[in-house]
């Protein structure tokens, strides 16, 4: 292991332990690491915006014939007026353009790409040739989807049939949220394991290399 690699592992270990130290108490090491972290994350955007937007998406194409790209160029410069309270209204057009295009896309794909296929794939036969397991699953699915939709229905008070369906809905919802919590715990623990794996295998592993 070369000197540079050793330095890199110790640098990462310092950053990791400095941030973990907050678990015990807020301390200067943590505050140093946190402020460097905020700065680096912002600095990353400078390089990214310059390269992937200004140079390759705006300037080069504009120079090689697509002159009308000066329009989005101006709109993106107007975005910076958001920083001054007096002129922030100038940036509204740029914001409106971004929101308009995104809303136009979302209007289509939310309905066509989510609602339609999700409704269609819930329409399964309640009985038929498949085994009991599949039919039971279909019944659970159909009841679960309908009762969840009814639970989030507000135009009428949840009484009578509507009330009963909503009541079934809340039990389904509780099972789903329980499953979600159980699943999430593993995710959070894995992230900790990733860091401890580095500290033990790479950092402590490098102790032998010193000297």
């Amino acid at each position: 292991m070369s000197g540079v690699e050793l330095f890199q592992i110790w640098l990462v270990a310092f950053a990791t332990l400095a941030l973990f130290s907050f678990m015990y108490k807020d301390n200067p090491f943590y505050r140093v690491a946190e402020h460097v972290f905020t700065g680096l994350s912002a600095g990353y955007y400078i390089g990214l915006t310059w390269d992937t937007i200004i140079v390759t998406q705006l300037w080069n194409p504009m120079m090689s014939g697509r002159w009308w790209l000066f329009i989005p160029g101006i709109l993106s410069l107007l975005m910076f007026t958001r920083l001054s309270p007096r002129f922030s209204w100038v940036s509204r057009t740029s914001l409106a353009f971004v929101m308009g295009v995104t809303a136009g896309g979302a209007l289509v794909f939310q309905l066509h790409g989510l609602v339609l296929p999700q409704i269609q794939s819930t329409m399964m036969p309640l009985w038929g040739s498949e085994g009991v397991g599949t039919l039971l699953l279909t019944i659970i699915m159909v009841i679960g989807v309908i009762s969840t939709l009814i639970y989030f229905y507000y135009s009428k008070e949840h009484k009578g049939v509507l009330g009963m369906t909503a009541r079934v809905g809340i039990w389904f919802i509780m099972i789903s949220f329980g499953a979600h919590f159980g699943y999430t715990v593993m995710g959070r623990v894995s992230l900790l394991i990733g860091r401890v794996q580095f500290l033990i295998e790479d950092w402590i592993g490098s102790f032998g290399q010193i000297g």
Partner: protein
Amino acid sequence: MRTTVPIAVAFIAGMVVAVSYFFADESAIGWLRLEFLVWLIIVGGMTLALGVVSIVRVNWDAVKKRKEGWPYKVLTLVSVFAMGVPAVLPESWSPLFGRNQGSIYEWLFTYLDAPMMATMFATLAFYIASAAYRAFRARNAEATVLLITATAVMLWRVPMGEAFLNLFPGDIPYFLNTYIMAGANMAVQRGIIIGAALGAASMSLRIILGIERTYMGRG
């Protein structure tokens, strides 16, 4: 002028992108849609730079006024430019510049920024453990169902836990995956997805028609 122009822009941009869905790419509206999408990359992308400017401004202000903890703010400013400036300089001058492998930009991200992001998220494992102990009470029937399902799924998702579940008769892991995860949970998630998609579609329509303007802010 301050509101009508933006509303008109949002309407035109939204309608072009939405209506173009029903037309071929080669049509005039198909061409305009692709242009608007490319423009979105440029105009929207600038919001990233906007965030950087405001962070620099906030921290510069704190340093100038020697506010509490200002030396740490100096560190933030140094980090911003230590990462940003080399990335903007042309790569032809030195392999340390630009954004490619071997640049300062890449090195700082790989050996400082990325591990710190991973560590900040890893602290969640501690918090979830302490919350499981302190706050997770079977206060009522619903919370009890939630807790029982959560514990069963937690056990199932881990090799040791699954081996323990297999000691019991019947195939509990299969039941959990098929009737809980792909059954009740899937049905509820589908209900929520449909509800959320309807909400998002109606919000999109309000933005295009100019009814929803809160994103423009006041002033």
